């Protein structure tokens, strides 16, 4: 008997499988550091502002935010969120935070990593590193954890300027200097806590490696401009993890170089991530980690996702002339990650469209047919600008948008069936607007 092996809708990059060991290594290092009672820090995506300094000082960061995506994917998050609700936390708070609070409650109750925690769980922290970056949860959440962990907390600053174009240089200067001064404070905090000095040579070597990783990762994503798009959003979401958490590591660079080679080969041979690319889309902002198979269903319909999750994309390479001043160099890069799309728009003569800028820039450069937005019940930050972004793309570029409500962690609020029902209508919309754009002289 022959059973036809169902052709996978999305041809995942083979080299994306190389990412798995990097992530496993990261979790194992955390568990090991905990067991051996070496310093462990609970941290998060802070756009490269602080963790590399901790690593250079021998601290092992552990990432509850990433742990949240893992728990969501395995369906375990619901249980932890229930525990968090029983502790009195409202259920609209960040899903990752609820997951962490629930996990931590259980960990304190059991006196060890709780039964059933995936990836070996998260070791008890020696201290916690918060960030002001992008969302308030990044410091409110760890502040709440003080109920469980009586350990020091440091918060990294993160200016949110409204002026992101090159014209207000004095604003940018003040912002970066503030961040750099605070990073010196962070170093002093660590040196005092760990009773050792920062090895600046080690840090510099890590920064150099990190910058190479950013460059390759940037170039990989630039290659996705090709038609058909060689790499799907699902691969992006897998591969963004090492870039955030282990970019200091030469192994990460080696993996990304392999990814680059594979993507380049696909481009050279006209191979797309899906067999029949009918539509090229962007996705805003964070996916339903618990239901990523949803994208395979869309791929079966010919939907390829060429870009996504703007706030998680690497910024373009930049000359980081800070000289020997490592805090200044770090601050400058983090700040650049926030403002770079405004610079790009100014350089290319695109209209300034505020928070919709990344999606506007991509729509033009990746030749996008539609935007799919996913409002998240537990993340206002990653949801607020959806309507505006859809309006901008429609009004300025004649690109239609579709919205499917859900959440990053809470799988009960995501209704895939209803979302898929809307697909045919949206395809008609994308077809129609393609004609409109052509009639206006745009080339996609």
């Amino acid at each position, binding site marked *: 008997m022959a059973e036809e092996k169902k052709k996978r809708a999305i041809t995942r990059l083979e080299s994306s499988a190389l990412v798995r060991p990097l992530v496993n290594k990261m979790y194992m290092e955390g568990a090991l550091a905990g067991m051996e009672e070496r310093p462990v820090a609970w941290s998060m995506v802070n756009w490269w502002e602080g963790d590399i300094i901790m690593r250079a000082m021998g601290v092992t960061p552990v990432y509850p935010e990433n742990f949240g995506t893992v728990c969501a994917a395995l369906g375990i998050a619901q249980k932890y969120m229930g525990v968090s609700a029983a*502790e*009195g*936390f*409202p259920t*609209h*708070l*960040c899903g990752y*935070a609820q997951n962490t609070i629930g996990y931590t409650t259980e960990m304190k109750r059991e006196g060890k990593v709780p039964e059933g925690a995936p990836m070996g769980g998260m070791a008890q922290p020696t201290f916690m590193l*918060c960030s*002001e970056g992008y*969302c*308030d*949860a990044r*410091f*409110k*959440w760890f*502040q*709440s954890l*003080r*109920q469980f962990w*009586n350990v*020091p*907390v440091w*918060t990294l*600053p993160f*200016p*949110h*300027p*409204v002026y992101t174009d090159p014209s207000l240089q*004095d*604003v940018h200067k*003040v*912002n970066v200097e*503030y961040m750099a*001064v*605070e990073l010196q*404070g962070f170093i002093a905090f660590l040196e005092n806590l760990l009773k050792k000095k920062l090895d600046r040579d080690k840090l510099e070597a890590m920064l150099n490696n990190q910058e190479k990783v950013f460059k390759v990762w940037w170039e990989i994503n630039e290659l996705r401009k090709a038609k058909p798009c060689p790499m799907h959003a699902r691969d992006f979401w897998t591969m963004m993890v090492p870039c955030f958490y282990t970019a200091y590591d030469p192994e990460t660079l080696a993996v990304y170089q392999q990814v680059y080679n594979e993507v380049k080969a696909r481009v050279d041979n006209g191979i797309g991530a899906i067999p029949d690319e009918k539509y090229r889309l962007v996705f805003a902002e964070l996916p339903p980690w618990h239901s990523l198979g949803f994208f395979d269903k869309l791929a079966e319909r010919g939907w390829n996702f060429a870009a996504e999750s703007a706030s998680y994309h690497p910024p373009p390479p930049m000359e980081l002339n800070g000289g020997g001043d490592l805090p200044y160099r770090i601050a400058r890069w983090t700040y650049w990650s926030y403002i770079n799309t405004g610079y790009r728009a100014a350089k290319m003569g695109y209209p300034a469209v*505020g*928070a919709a800028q990344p999606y506007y820039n991509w729509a033009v450069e990746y030749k996008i047919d539609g935007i799919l937005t996913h*409002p*998240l*019940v537990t993340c*206002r*930050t990653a*949801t*607020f*600008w*959806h*309507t*505006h972004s859809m*309006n901008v793309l429609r009004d300025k570029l004649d690109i239609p948008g579709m*919205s499917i*409500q859900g959440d990053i962690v809470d799988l009960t609020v995501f209704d895939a069936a209803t979302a898929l029902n809307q697909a045919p209508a949206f395809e008609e919309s994308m077809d129609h607007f393609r004609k409109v754009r052509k009639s206006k002289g745009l080339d996609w």
Partner: protein
Amino acid sequence: MSSKGLAKAKDIYANRAGRVRELKAEGKKIMGYVCAYPPLEMVTAMDYAPIRVIGSMDEPITKADTQVPSIICPMLRSMLDLGMKGKADFVEDFIGAHTCDCAEKFCHLYQHNMQFPYYHFLDVPHIAHKASFGFMKAGFQLFQKTLEAHTGKKLDPDRLKQEVKKHNAQRALVRELYGLRRQDPPLLSGSENLQIMLALLSIPIEEGSGMLKDIIAEVKARKDGPKKKAARLLLWGSPLTETSIIDMIESLNANVVMDDICTGTRHFWPDVEMTSDPLDGLAKRYLDDLKCPRTFRETTSSFEEDQEVRFGYIKDYAKEWNVNGVILQSMKYCDTHGYEVPAIKAYFDRLGIPSLYLEHEYTMVALAPLKTRVEAFIEMIS
């Protein structure tokens, strides 16, 4: 406007847009602003009347849905909605501030929709480290620069110092007014107090101070104040822009005698310290002395001490106003206050002060379920 004292506050509360339009007709320049963070002393020193932009719990949201998803702060959605409907047309120029996530984004979206000729955004840090004060001050300096460029006038530091005195004078009057609720029964109700605070946010500072003086005299002399009731409650949490929730509480066996909300004590309580460069005093007052959970308070040697740092001032309120219960309220989707709830509840439990948490949807309707909870709470503490 011809009414005075409590009647004036009521009239302004009932029709704040009407009063602001009167002011405009008199030639006043109106500077709209959000939250409690913009330095109003600098605004008045440049001859603007600062009018806080607020939402309405009474107006169903319709137009805002074309600009922003529904699962964000309902008050900010309302503010956008009112703006789009032309109900905030008295605002000429606008100051935004990075207070919480949604407010930060709201400010830019509001400007995008309203297209004010002058829009300045204050990037307020969430932490109050030493360098953060310098950063806050630099933000004020930038604000000064853009406002000077827009008005063609220079900000006079001596004038600014005078404004600091004027604003502090109003704050002292507000504290005096609140003091009239220390006794039992309080001399004015929580609803009346909220109306007065909202009225203050809708008129120039001197006019507000004049109104306060009249009210204090009126209230001290009145015979028709609230009755003595079993519960003396402190109300904590999200901003309230209508009295509906307090009305509901005070319709039961309770008086709301004190608050910790930003359309109440948070906006008015701390003075600005007079410093040789007035911007230093302003930076300290607005970043550090202003109490709002959007600011991260440095952690200490224990969680209990953290709570003391974060909430100790409320304990003082509870003591001085002889409070026997606390109502913790926040709007649905308010993450800033949502994260606080377990910690602040545990704090009051430790102090032996009963508390009740209510999550509401920032509307006038559907208060019946909340009422049952409040009623049961009052039964519990009586």
